[in-house]
């Protein structure tokens, strides 16, 4: 490979700036004509990962569909902060029905479009982790199983944020939430519980399943674009840190998401028809403590005394992910440069 080797010490990441890329490869957000599907003025907290993720997902989908997109949203932060009546931040046709039925409502929209011969208009359903893995799970599984022509996007902030940070089936072990408090000898959410929804989605053998985070927005956009090039049931699971619920600084959202990946706690991969087809390798592995320490929902693991047993148990989860998905390439993973 020719070309100049570029170093990115200044941001401490391996992200490649847009200006160094071929225009065709640049991020959708770099496009002055982007849709701004979720436009400014919404009421999310500062640094909300869900707002960031949704904007990228929908703008990428708008680009991929030529603007022919209909969106169905489950109840949750994204719905509440985007539509304080009489205002709305959506510049796409958008419907909020209920908390637990978004995948079915989206499938219904897709059915009408098919009945009316408008196959060019595509449908996205979206919701939080609670709406996806818990209360909406039955409808989602039905939508998968029928292979309805819907991309469902789960914005996973690992708890019920809209109602004040309660545990969901996506809350990780040891995390403190309002319903998994840290008191007595109980230290937050239990180990050995929770749903791995991407894997459950894969078990439906649907055409496409992918995970992504707001740390790698280019990757997120590419996955949306790929998903929209396919038909049938598709599922995208996006990790979106929540400063309020996680107790992170609002300026750290992207950093925290990156550490989730680089610690091995959040595997980023793609699967088609039930088989993993690609993984994003960890380029510089970090100890899980580096990720956890930035979040007050894990403060009890560090003060008043460090809980090494719990940290080790979380480390074992990361280790398991790394092994299962082959997240660490066998080349030298410590090098700090990339070629564009």
């Amino acid at each position: 490979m020719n070309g100049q080797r570029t170093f990115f010490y200044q941001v401490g990441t391996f992200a490649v700036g847009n200006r160094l890329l071929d225009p065709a490869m640049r991020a959708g957000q770099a496009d002055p004509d982007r849709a701004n599907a979720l436009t400014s003025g919404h009421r999310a907290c500062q640094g909300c990962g869900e707002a960031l993720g949704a904007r990228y997902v929908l703008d990428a989908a708008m680009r991929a569909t030529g603007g022919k997109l209909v969106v169905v949203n489950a109840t949750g932060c994204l719905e509440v902060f985007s539509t304080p009546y009489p205002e709305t931040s959506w510049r796409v046709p958008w419907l909020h029905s209920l908390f637990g039925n978004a995948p079915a409502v989206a499938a219904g929209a897709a059915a009408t479009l098919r009945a009316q011969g408008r196959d060019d208009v595509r449908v996205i359903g979206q919701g939080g982790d609670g709406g996806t893995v818990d209360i909406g799970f039955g409808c989602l599984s039905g939508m998968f199983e029928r292979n309805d022509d819907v991309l469902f996007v789960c914005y996973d902030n690992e708890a019920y944020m809209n109602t004040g940070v309660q545990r969901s089936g996506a809350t990780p072990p040891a995390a403190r939430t309002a319903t998994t408090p840290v008191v007595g000898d109980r230290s937050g959410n239990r180990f050995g519980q929770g749903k791995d929804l991407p894997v459950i989605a894969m078990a439906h053998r649907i055409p496409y399943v992918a995970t992504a985070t707001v740390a790698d927005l280019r990757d997120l956009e590419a996955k949306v674009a790929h998903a929209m090039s396919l038909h049938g049931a598709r599922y995208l699971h996006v990790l979106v840190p929540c400063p309020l619920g996680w107790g992170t600084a609002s300026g750290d959202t992207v950093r925290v998401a990156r550490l989730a990946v680089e610690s091995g706690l959040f595997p980023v991969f793609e699967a088609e028809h039930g088989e993993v087809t690609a993984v994003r390798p960890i380029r510089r592995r970090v100890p899980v403590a580096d990720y956890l320490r930035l979040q007050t929902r894990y403060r009890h693991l560090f003060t008043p005394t460090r809980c090494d047993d719990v940290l080790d148990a979380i480390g074992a989860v990361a280790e398991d992910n790394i092994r299962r998905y082959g997240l660490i390439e066998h080349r030298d993973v410590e090098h700090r440069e990339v070629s564009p």
Partner: protein
Amino acid sequence: MFAVRIHGRGGQGVVTAAELLSVAAFTEGRHAQAFPSFGSERTGAPVVAFCRIDTRPIRTREPIAIADCVIVQDPTLLRHVDVLAGLRPAGSVLVNWAGPVDQLELPPGAVAVAATQLALRHVGRPVPNAALLGGFAALTGQVRLESVLDAIRGRFPASLAAANVAAAQEAYDLVRAECEERQDA
């Protein structure tokens, strides 16, 4: 009946302030009712909380439209929210503001206290609520400072409580001095 309305932003402890005030009045043997403005606001959005204090049991549940005192936890709200709506003619205004109070367009009796600065110094975080409650005690005399401090102690873990108590105490002293100065003038 003494009616207090507290204006602030999500994350500034507005609801806690109303609650602590009601606890302070309760410990003095009076009846008190505190309640928030019940929104789905997120961090940084304008919020309101209410507190009624009376010698008789309080039955009414309506939001406070006629206020005897308004506490403004965030001066930037003055541009967006009519915080003075329904304030009684002789009502008091306490605002969290580090500069001279006449820089703000408030009624002549309004008193400012730099509650955020006090909080940063004592607590290390910009949560002005405890300091403002100290100021409230000095300004209105509706509750004793000691009751406010007890309410704070009952609410937070020891070290956090101590920091907030210090902020409230200092705000109390500052507002008291200010009130005395005005009386002399």
